[in-house]
Each structure stands twice: as structure tokens, then as C-alpha cells.
């Protein structure tokens, strides 16, 4: 079993894993991405996996800038394609603990095909989707997670499409680990990440996060968005996943929790067993 460190790392320890020379970062005031960054750094520091084996991969977007500020092997690739890049890394070096940070547009809109197939294959990667309901970096267009009715740069009269219910989607596809939190749940995010590092398979975490571009367009202060989250959030690990859609209606709940944690064997584990069975020489 893992030997995680239970104590919260000091600020100096956190800093030791940040590329402080790159500060200030690009994220807007009131953005939630930094909170997830810190939670990840804390989880990495506390994990039993050596720092040099943690790898962070991202596509393009605000959320995807994460590897740029964290002192681990980091790869900031192209929009929507962090998953297949990570699958390549992980498949040839199973010692690596590969974690992806992605915006919702990156992961499930342009990258949706990789998401569904990676879960089906059950790649041994950790995927954190920061859901700000919008394409943040390009100025606030709607994407696959934009709640119906939302005003965005490209849905000025209110969004007419439905949004993905991400935990339901991931669970339905067979992901062995599925959780959802908001940026108000720092402790839970750290805790979830530590569990995700131990999953042999596709571990998925959605984090709901405020984006000033979205809140402005929907006539809310970011702080109101946070208050609203606090008011609407219900922790329910046993929730019926079909109840997890996110709506604009302030009277609806936003259900969070650790929904799925099931036995799993990744594609990579299966492949290396095949190699062994065939007598494949690893240095061949």
C-alpha cells in the first residue's frame, strides 16, 4: 500500500515545486485554476511516488498552462490532444505517474474522441478537467459543458444546446475512478488526487471553477458565483449520476463527491502482461 504523508506541506515545500521564476502567472484575478494547481502540488509532495516520476501534461487553454508553473516534467502540447500524448508516455514507461490538466473545451469538446476511447481502453492516467463552463482563453465561447441558457460570446441570446454531465459520461464509459469537486473543496481535491495516483486505470476528476469571463457575461460577480456554488453544492458520494447535470437555475443542486472507485486493470497492465507471456525481452 502507499505511504502517503499526512501532514500538509509548508509553503516553502510548495514553492520548491513551483517554477517561481515564471511568476506572475497568466490567470485572471478570481480564477480558480491556481487553487487546483496548489492542490496538485500538495498531493504530489505527499504522494509515495518519487517526484521525478510525476509527469504533467496539458493541451491548450488557461487550465492547460498548469505545467508551465510546476517544476516537474511537463508537456504543454496541442489543443485537445493531451490524452493521446500521455498514453504514449505512459505506455512505454509505466513507472511514470501521468496527470493531465485540461479545460472543459480542451478535454471534452475538441478532445472528446480521445476521452471516450481512453476510458474504454482504460489507460492508466489521471485526468483533471477544470470546468469553467466556457472557453476561457479565447474569450468566452460556449463549449460542451456550457449550461443551457448561459450567455457566452457565441451564444449572446442564451445557449440552446445541452451540456455534458461529465461524471455520468465517464462512469458510463467505464472509468474506474470518478469524482467531482469545486474549487471550494481544496482538501477533498488533494485527497482525491492521492487516491487517483493509486488507480490502475483512467481516474477522472472534474473541478468546477469560476471564470470571470463567464460570470461577467452572465451578470454575476465571481464572488457571487462562489457563494452560489457554496449554497448549491451537495456532497453525495452515492448520488444517482444522472442527477449530476449542471444547470443555470439557482434553485438546483450541484452534486459533488467521489462517485466511482472500482477495481481496475489498465490497458498498460494488460499489455505488459502480454509482453511477459510472449517472452518479450524488454531490452530487445
Amino acid at each position, binding site marked *: 500500500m502507499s505511504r502517503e504523508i499526512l501532514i500538509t506541506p509548508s509553503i516553502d515545500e510548495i514553492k520548491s515545486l513551483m*517554477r517561481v521564476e*515564471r511568476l506572475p502567472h497568466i490567470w485572471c484575478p478570481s480564477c480558480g485554476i491556481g487553487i487546483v494547481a496548489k492542490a496538485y502540488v500538495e498531493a504530489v509532495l505527499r504522494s509515495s511516488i518519487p517526484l*521525478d*516520476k510525476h*509527469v504533467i*501534461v496539458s493541451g*491548450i487553454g488557461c487550465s492547460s498552462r498548469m*505545467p*508551465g508553473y510546476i*517544476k*516537474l*516534467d*511537463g*508537456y*504543454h*502540447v*496541442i489543443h485537445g*490532444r493531451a*490524452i*493521446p*500524448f*500521455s*498514453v*504514449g*508516455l*505512459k*505506455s*512505454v*514507461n509505466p*513507472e*511514470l505517474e501521468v496527470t493531465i490538466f485540461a479545460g472543459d473545451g480542451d478535454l471534452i469538446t475538441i478532445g472528446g*474522441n*480521445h476521452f471516450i*476511447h481512453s476510458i474504454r481502453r482504460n489507460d492508466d492516467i489521471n485526468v483533471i478537467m477544470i470546468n469553467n463552463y466556457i472557453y476561457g482563453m479565447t474569450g468566452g465561447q460556449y463549449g460542451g459543458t456550457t449550461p443551457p441558457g448561459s450567455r457566452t460570446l457565441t451564444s449572446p441570446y442564451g445557449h440552446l444546446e445541452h451540456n455534458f454531465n461529465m461524471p455520468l459520461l465517464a462512469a458510463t464509459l467505464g472509468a474506474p475512478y470518478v469524482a467531482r469537486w469545486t474549487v471550494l473543496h481544496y482538501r477533498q481535491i488533494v485527497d482525491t488526487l492521492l487516491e487517483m495516483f493509486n488507480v490502475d486505470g483512467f481516474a477522472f476528476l472534474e473541478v468546477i471553477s469560476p471564470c470571470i469571463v463567464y460570470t461577467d457575461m452572465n451578470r454575476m460577480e465571481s464572488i457571487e458565483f462562489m457563494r452560489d456554488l457554496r449554497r448549491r453544492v451537495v456532497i453525495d458520494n452515492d448520488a444517482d449520476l444522472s442527477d449530476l447535470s449542471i444547470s443555470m437555475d439557482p434553485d438546483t443542486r450541484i452534486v459533488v463527491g467521489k462517485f466511482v472507485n472500482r477495481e481496475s486493470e489498465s490497458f498498460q497492465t494488460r*499489455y505488459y502482461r*502480454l*509482453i511477459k507471456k*510472449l*517472452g*518479450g*525481452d*524488454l*531490452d*530487445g
Partner: protein
Amino acid sequence: MGSRDGILEPGTYFMRGNDACVEGALIAGCRFFGGYPITPSNEISALMARKLPLIGGVFIQFEDEIASIMGVIGAANAGVKSMTATSGPGFSLMQEAIGLAYMIETPIVIVNVQRGGPSTGLPTQVGQGDFLQTHYGSHGDYMTIVYLPNSPQEMFDMIIKAFNAAWTYRVPTILLSDQMVGHMIERVVIPSLEDILVVDRVKPDVDPEKYLPFDSKYLVPPMAVAGEGYRVHLTGLAHDERGYPTTNPETVSKQYERMAEKIRRNEDRIIEWEEYLTHDAELIIVAFGITSRSALKAVKDARRLGYRVGLFRLKTGWPFPWKPLTRLAEQGCRFLVVEINAGQVVRIVREYIPNELVYHLPWHPGSVPPPEIILKKIREVFNG
């Protein structure tokens, strides 16, 4: 067959071009293949799927070609020689990622077994319409190294060269084949392993704190890979020596210049071509791949009829062997470019040779221009 049916033993084989390419790749050290089915490249993934796990390698059939090439770029960044194989439509999907591989200086090998384009075109038939795409298909300015095999033997030899070039220069390298060469079955000689040059990555020899992934004191900086402790940051954004994004014009130019120079300055070492009866030729046919075989026959036939004709066969498309070509031009000859497209190689030839000296025989995809047609064109050129 070879040991445990994995790496092939030296010897003389009767082998299909696409299969020879797999055998060569494995000898070159390829241990990861990511691909998506497409005719006429399918024999490559089928053989890879069977062989790779036998020698400790990994095969993945991905959900599309974008995923395939991204998987290859990922595996290479873990230090493992990796490749993909595709044809026109798949090669088009890979273009954005080729730019990424160039930008983060990741050695990857792509095999494009060309079919007739555009679009779905002629899936089972030959074409040479992707020549310019191998250098200009992705956005922005970038470099690739491109090998042009014309036989199963060269599918074997050149895939090894492609791996060596990719890992020497940290640049996407393409084996641009075609349906006929890929499917053709011919004699292939596999030399003993000691006689095959295999190049590996230059590893950093400095402490991780001192390591600069894009150190401009090198043309080709040593390459650290994931998990080694160098804690690299690689991005497709324009970046400085540390790999950090920058918009500083000087830094950007310096890095861009180095990335182009690493190929330009090694051009003479990379380029390959072959000449046949060029020494006294008044007309030189320029061709590559399958077309060069038809052209060779046309040259022989023309010689028999008394026409002083030679052949200049491109073995690398990029860098383009313009130096030997311009040397030939100095002997006062004319050129006839024959290719299965509407005019791609001819554009490059005309960059270096005066227009009035360059003739062109374009050909629609689906077949190879027969020697008689090439001969007819030769006669036209001679007889004005």
C-alpha cells in the same frame, strides 16, 4: 525467421515493401507504434502489432491519426523510438502535431504510403501528391527530413536512416513511400546487425539544475526525457532556452534560427540522390519513388535510340538535393521532371534551375506514367 520471431535474422528475403519497413524499423530500435487503419499502409500496423510485444515494444491502434501521432510524440518524449504509418487522409490529420514535434524538437518517424488524392481519392492506387505536404503541410515555417524509397530494399534501408536522422537532429522525419513501393514484393537483403548504423539520442551530461532543454550553444541540444529528473517544460509556444514561453523577438528569432540551422548546416550530410548516365546527358529526368523506376526504363530506351538522356533520382525530398542538381545544370543540360501529381517537385527544381530549361510531365494519380509516355516526352523535348 529471426529470434523468437521478433527481429529478423540477416539474410536475403523476398519481401513486401511495407513489411521491409517494419523489419527495418525494429532493427533501428523502434519500440512504439501508434496508428490508425488506412490503405495502402495497413501491412505496417498489422506486422507491428504482431512483432512489437515479442520484443518488449508497445503497439496501439488509436482512435484516429491525431491520437496516433500524439502517442508517438509522447512515447518519444519518454525516450523510446516511435513511429506511425498512414496515407493521405491520415497524413492530413497529423499536420498540426508535426508542427508540435518540430517545435519541441521531438524525434518521430512517420511513414506515408501515398495513395491518390485529394480527399478519399484513389485509396488503393498510387499517387505522389503529398510531396509538398511533407514540408509545407503544417502551419508556420518548419523543417522535416524526408526519404523517398523506390523499392522494398529501400523501405528497409531508409526507415533505418529515418530513425537515425530523427534522433540525430531531433526533427520529424518522414518516409514518403507510395502504394506500389509499399505493396511490391522484391528481394530484400538484411545485413548483419553489426553492419547497420543505429543512432541513439544524445543524453544531457549536466546536473538537472544546469540543464537547458533548448540550449543555444548547441545546434541540436542533448535531449532529456520524462522521468529522468531533468524536470523539463516543453511547449508548442515559442520558447526560450529553458523551454519557457516567450514573445521576446530576439529570443524567438534565436531559437527559430537554431532549429532551422540544425538542418540547413547539415544539409550536405543528409541529402541523398542517385545519378544514372548523367555525365554526358543533354536531358536529365528528375523523378522519385515508383516513378523513378519507369523513368529509368525510359532513359535506357532513349539511349538505345541515341538520345543522350540521364536520370537524377531524388532519395531525399527534404532537404532538397539542389546542390548536385545545380552542378549538373552547369554542364549545360535540360531537365524533365516526371511525377504523379500536377507539379510539385517541378516547382522546387524551378527554384534552382532557369525556367526555360525545365520541362514537366505531370500525371494523374492511379497509375505510374509508363516508360513509353516518358520516352514520347523525351522525344518532344529533343525534337522541339
